[in-house]
């Protein structure tokens, strides 16, 4: 039903249930607000938004008063003006007028309104609220004296973030917003509260007293950390980032929300450890060099290897962090300038396998659904994915759908993750038994005839094979592997079958090594038999841990694919690239990431060029990687810090980082987004694409480009599904590929018009019994990411390290008892490949028999323990846990 009303003489028409404030905004009548927030439920506390009902002459708070038909509202009467001024006067009576030192000064709603009203004093004596200033919390500081108790922070922390860290404490005038019992904040440090605060009560501790807010210039760009690709406004001045806000317009993916990394992780950019000059190895030492010297060393080294051992004796590791342009030129350099397909990235260890499963099933190697589309999902199935930590802002979309929408949530995760608290069902299956779980669900659906028969008949091939492969996977039989009660599986299977729109979320990657291609394959089968592909609110999103995994693969930084997933083995594709690139391209299959390490170990690979990656820290089996590196004749590392791999390199090239360059990222839901240069890079560094193009040219292959966006124009010419994403279309928003032409809006949900091959392919589910620990190595290692860090990059952000400074192993209380461990003890985790030492914490998030270790920390490299087998064969890594004397004590001793 529509409601018609008049506001200041303007006619407004709104939906039933809309507030007077909504209606006023629609007709551009400005009403001041403090407590109102677009993403929060109406609260009605500040009362500044009062308006007058012309009929009754009564005042109403417009934000919480529903518009009614025929209402005549006035916002500019004497009565309204007096009421607003009275509220403003009261707020200012006890609000400290410390604007000169307030971090919000210059963009404070209270200051602005006071400015407009133009009174510098009130009728009532200025008083001191005498409340607390939080000096203990990391990252976020709260000055309760400045707080106007609008409750935005309290509500955003609860309603949006699902944390409830802050609440009102006390009564009457002394009421304050605080964490429970007045303790320091111990939360996700997302800083949503900072951004929501209309005054300077909550602010970034890092930003405070650095520079006046009004001197900052916002630069819109894309967050460089996880695959969500949040839209940021970096606030900069004089080549320094001071502050970060989430963009909250329609073109942003994140509604203004950010996680701790996005909001505080920028500090890595200004870290003094940044590489500032090229370096070349002289004997045992890396010494500073000019760019010319470094290039000479690389060019001569590469040429020598190529001449002596052939182009395939050189390999390149591309970067899942760098832009599409950097990666495109990198693979072009490897293929056209050097003549090898040996180019790959860490996508190999997780995400590639996931999207490969999707390509085999649906024909396109990418997530089928968009993150925004979760809004329409009826059932969200989060399998082995810790979404609120791996992709925090995507987690917020899930929380919103589940808490305030009609969406149900099934969490299948051995760990008690945050999302489990909000789930309708939490399944704690044994780690590594995801395939068994999905098989049993599929078994029930098929056995009970609950599949979407019409969809399957029209659009799916291979159902018989699938049926045969799961015929034996009854919930009762699978219970032995999954530990999930058969009845519960049946119930879940039925609710999945009954849901109109199902979205599956997964987080493949080295950190979740047990979510591999077979898990994703099983998930695609579940979607196919229930008809949950190609419609709104349905599909599958494997979440990428890194910002540009999807993009790096799209542009060809993979051994077997030219840009746009055109196979190197496809002569036709090769020929067209040869025409475009004016070069002869290698036809042989290239070595993938693991293959290159193996070849180096075997002495077959002699040169390795690493761009924006640290294989020693991020590839499995650190020992093996280390040996491989030592074998190389030439190791080139191009990065922003002196990484472990850079330390053993022959040439180190200093690159610029995300906020210092232009280009594009493609996020986890195929959305191509702009990366914008916000500040100048350190003087002697260069953009990755620029370095590669210069080296290509130096190698005798012309790779001159005028800018990163010049490179991007070439990309959209060779990647068909990027063809319509013209650079100018990316000014205000991102575009989901496929977008074949400039007039195409982009594709949020894939396969709405069917599948590239006509039908989707259900595949047999290859269920393997998960491995068990042995007497020597009884504990299953669960490597994983932390909310506060992204790869190793954010460990270079000083303030984030205040929250999560070191690796801590999480041990189940039962295990801790038998090991005689208490929180704070030191442990040694030992596996077949090596051992690492760290502090332990007793926490019941893990199942008995498992130990969780974060992957971010250089000095506690979890990859020391990992082997290549888990990745390929779905085995799992087992370790022993031994209590040791603390390293600190050793140092003292």
């Amino acid at each position, binding site marked *: 039903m529509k409601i018609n009303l008049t506001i200041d003489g303007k006619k407004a028409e709104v939906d039933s249930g809309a507030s007077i404030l909504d209606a006023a905004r629609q007709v551009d009548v400005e009403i001041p607000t403090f407590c109102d927030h677009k993403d929060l439920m*109406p*609260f*009605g*506390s*500040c*009362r*500044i938004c*009062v308006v007058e009902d012309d009929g009754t002459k*009564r*005042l109403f*708070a417009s934000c*919480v*008063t*529903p518009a009614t038909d025929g209402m005549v509202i006035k916002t500019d009467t004497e*009565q309204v003006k*007096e*009421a607003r001024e*009275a*509220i403003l006067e*009261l*707020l200012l*009576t*006890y609000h400290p007028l410390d604007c000169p030192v307030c971090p919000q000064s210059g963009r404070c709603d209270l200051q602005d309104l006071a400015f407009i009203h133009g009174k510098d004093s009130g*009728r*009532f*004596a200025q*008083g001191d609220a005498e409340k607390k200033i939080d000096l203990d919390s990391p990252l976020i500081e709260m000055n309760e004296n400045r707080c*106007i*108790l609008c*409750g935005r922070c309290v509500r955003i922390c609860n309603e949006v973030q699902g944390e409830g860290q802050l*609440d*009102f404490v*006390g*009564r*009457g*005038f*002394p*009421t304050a917003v605080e964490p429970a019992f007045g303790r320091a904040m111990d939360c996700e440090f997302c800083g949503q509260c900072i951004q929501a605060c209309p005054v300077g009560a909550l602010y970034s501790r890092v930003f405070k007293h650095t520079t006046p807010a009004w001197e900052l210039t916002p630069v819109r760009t894309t967050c460089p950390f996880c695959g969500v690709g949040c839209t940021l406004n970096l606030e900069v001045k004089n080549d320094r980032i001071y502050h970060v806000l989430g963009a909250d317009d329609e073109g942003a993916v994140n509604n203004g929300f950010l996680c701790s990394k996005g909001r505080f992780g920028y500090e890595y950019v200004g870290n003094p450890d940044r590489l500032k000059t090229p370096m070349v190895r002289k004997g045992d030492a890396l010494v500073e060099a000019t760019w010319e010297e470094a290039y000479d060393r690389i060019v001569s080294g590469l040429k020598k290897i190529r001449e002596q051992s052939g182009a395939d004796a050189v390999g390149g590791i591309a970067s899942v962090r760098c832009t599409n342009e950097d990666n495109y030129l990198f693979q072009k350099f490897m293929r056209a300038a050097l003549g090898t397909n040996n180019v790959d990235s860490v996508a190999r260890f997780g995400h590639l396998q996931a999207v490969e499963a999707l390509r085999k099933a649906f024909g396109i190697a990418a997530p089928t659904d968009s993150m925004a589309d979760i809004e329409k999902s009826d059932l969200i199935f989060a399998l082995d994915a810790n979404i609120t930590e791996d992709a925090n802002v995507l987690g917020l979309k899930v929380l919103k759908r589940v808490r305030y929408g009609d969406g149900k949530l099934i969490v299948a995760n051995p760990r008690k993750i945050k999302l489990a608290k909000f789930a309708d069902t939490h399944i704690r299956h044994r780690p590594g038994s995801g395939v068994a779980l999905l098989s049993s669900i599929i078994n029930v659906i098929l056995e009970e005839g609950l599949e979407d028969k019409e969809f399957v008949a029209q659009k799916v091939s291979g159902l018989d094979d699938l049926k045969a492969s799961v015929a034996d996977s009854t919930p009762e039989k699978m219970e032995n592997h999954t530990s999930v009660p058969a009845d519960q599986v049946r119930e879940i299977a039925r609710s999945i079958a009954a849901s109109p729109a199902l979205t599956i979320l997964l987080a493949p990657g080295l950190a979740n090594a047990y979510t591999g291609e077979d898990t994703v394959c099983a998930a695609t089968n579940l979607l196919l038999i229930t008809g949950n592909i190609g419609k709104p609110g349905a599909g599958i999103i494997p979440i990428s841990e890194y910002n540009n995994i999807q993009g790096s693969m799209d542009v060809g930084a993979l051994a077997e694919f030219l840009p746009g997933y055109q196979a190197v083995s496809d002569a036709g594709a090769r020929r067209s690239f040869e025409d475009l690139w004016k070069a002869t391209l290698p036809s042989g299959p290239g070595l993938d990431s693991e293959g290159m390490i193996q070849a180096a170990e075997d002495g077959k690979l002699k040169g390795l060029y690493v761009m924006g990656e640290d294989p020693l820290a991020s590839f499995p089996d650190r020992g093996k990687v280390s040996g491989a590196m030592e074998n190389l004749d030439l190791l080139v590392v191009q990065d922003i810090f002196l990484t472990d791999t850079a330390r053993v390199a022959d040439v180190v090239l200093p690159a610029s980082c995300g906020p210092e360059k232009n280009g594009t990222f493609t996020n986890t839901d195929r959305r191509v987004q702009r990366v914008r240069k916000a500040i100048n890079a350190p003087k002697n560094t260069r953009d990755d694409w620029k370095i590669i193009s210069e080296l290509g040219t130096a190698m005798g292959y012309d790779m001159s480009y005028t800018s990163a966006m010049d490179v991007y124009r070439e990309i959209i010419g060779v990647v068909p599904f990027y063809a319509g994403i013209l650079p100018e279309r990316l000014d205000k928003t991102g575009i989901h590929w496929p977008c074949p032409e400039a007039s195409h809006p982009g594709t949020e949900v894939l396969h709405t018009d069917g599948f590239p091959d006509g039908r989707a392919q259900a595949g047999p589910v290859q269920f393997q019994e998960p491995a068990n620990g042995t007497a020597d190595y009884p504990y299953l290692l669960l490597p994983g990411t932390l909310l506060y860090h992204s790869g190793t990059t954010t460990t270079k952000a000083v303030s984030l390290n205040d929250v999560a400074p070191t690796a801590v192993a999480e041990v189940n209380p039962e295990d801790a008892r038998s090991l005689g461990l208490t929180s704070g003890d030191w442990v040694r985790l030992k596996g077949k490949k090596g051992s690492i030492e760290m502090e332990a914490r007793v926490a019941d998030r893990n199942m008995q028999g498992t130990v969780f270790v974060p992957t971010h920390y250089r000095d506690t490299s979890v990859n020391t323990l990992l082997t290549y087998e888990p990745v390929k064969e779905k085995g799992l890594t087992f370790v022993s846990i031994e209590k040791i004397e603390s390293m600190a004590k050793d140092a003292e001793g």
Partner: protein
Amino acid sequence: MASDPVGQKIFIGMGTCGLATGAAAVHESVQEALKKVGRDIPIIKTGCIGMCSKEVLVDIVQPNLPRVTYGQVQPEMIEKIIEEHLVGGNPIADLAIGQIVDEGMDPFKEIPTYMDLPVFRKQKRIVLRRCGFIDPDSIDDYLATGGYQGLEKAVKSMPPADIRETVKESGLRGRGGGGFPTGLKWEFCANADGDPKYLICNADEGDPGAFMDRSILEGDPHAVIEGMAIASYAIGAEYGYIYCRAEYPLAIQRLKIAISQAEEKGYLGQNILGSDTSFTLRIKEGAGAFVCGEETALMASVEGKRGMPRPRPPFPAHRGLWDHPTNINNVETYACVPPIVFDGAESYAAIGTEGTKGTKVFALAGKINNTGLIEVAAGTTLGEIIHEIGGGIEGGREFKAAQLGGPSGGCLPANLVETPIDYDSLIEAGAMMGSGGVVVMDDSDCMVDVARFFLTFTENESCGKCVPCRVGTKAMNAVLTRITEGGGVEEDLENLAQLGEQIKKTSLCGLGQTAPNPVLSTMRYFRDEYEAHIHDGKCPAKICTALITFGINEACTGCTVCAKKCPVGAITGERKELHVIDQSLCTKCNVCFEVCKFDAVVKE
């Protein structure tokens, strides 16, 4: 043991007021005394009959003889009462304060009947009719006095819509203070979409000086339960909560007993009295926030959230507890329901005034002789309540003003004693019915200080959510405090009036919307007192310590008591000689004034 005359009983007032004045010890003495005389007769622990100032009350009931009430009973008086009255048959006229003479009985001599007592003569007791006359822990007592007949009539012979119609016709308006027509409220909830529906009894009585609801719950808990059961049937609400503040332990205890008795007898629970209506009733204890008496804050509190009001609409009838349709009434409103349903709307509507039907319970407190509970027909004047029922002002001083409706209400001055007490007249006079608290002030009370007292209460009890209430009350209080300390300036009165109006207009809930009333009404009726503080630096009532000095005049006999009692040693003087106060040491604590038997200490 000698055989006891059948029908002998002893009543002891053991409501909170009785217990506070020593009823437990009296009870013990009664038990001992009975043992001594060898009589084993029932001792009824009854609720408050209303005469709180006369507690402990002990009544002797003998068959076919008037019931005699003894007031201000001490344990040592018991033996005499038992021996002479109960055993000897001779009531002690000196100790008795009244007798209830039923038809056909001969009154005892020299003891006034209840109807002779001004405190009772002008009362009309409907809600309080059982308080002080039954054992609240006995459902049988309740049943014997017509209890649950309203519910029985309702579920057996009246469709729900008829009940709502009856309540509408009775003219009953919410007794919690708002005065919204009860039948209409029920109608809204009954017609709202949503299942289940909830029924809530607001027993979060928190006004200073108000104790009506507590006494009803302590004295006649089944009446409230019956009223709720009828409402649940009339509305279709299957679940109910009584939200009672935890500071009322006796009320909670009695409610618990009453609920389990009612469940046992089939007045609560599934299929009430064999019908297909069901009502499950639970008690939710509040944690002591005044604001939880506001219905939306109350519901938040029941839900386990911070008790903070939210804007209305949506009203509870549409989206209340857990977003379900909910009907909230207060204790007294529910207690009015059984007689309305049983006796019919007309008999109730016959009482009261045009706009306010029926009776209203008031709690009299402050400088009045008969502090306690009364119930009068609406329209009774303030003067009747204070001077007749209330027995006039303590110590024979002059009546100055009465604060009606607690901190949300307003002050009525002595010259408005003819104001009839009903919803509309009181609003017109700048006060409000509120829940029924009447705090009486005499000429020794400073009205600026009184206003400050009530405003301090609301300032402290503001939930802190909205700006006008949270900050506005503090800002007003700061001005009032300054005035009482002699720092008042000309603009203060204008500023107080303006800010007060803004707070009323812009606050989120009733607490803030009424918080300035005590200030605004005292400024309206006692502006001269404010002006005396501001212009002359004087407190006419000699209360505001900053504006007065203590001195000792010629009447001093040199008894030295004041010097001995002065906590700061500010008074000096030889025995039998005029004493002197050292102004530099005096803290104006008023002790010397209080202890001087010769009115020699004076305040200027």
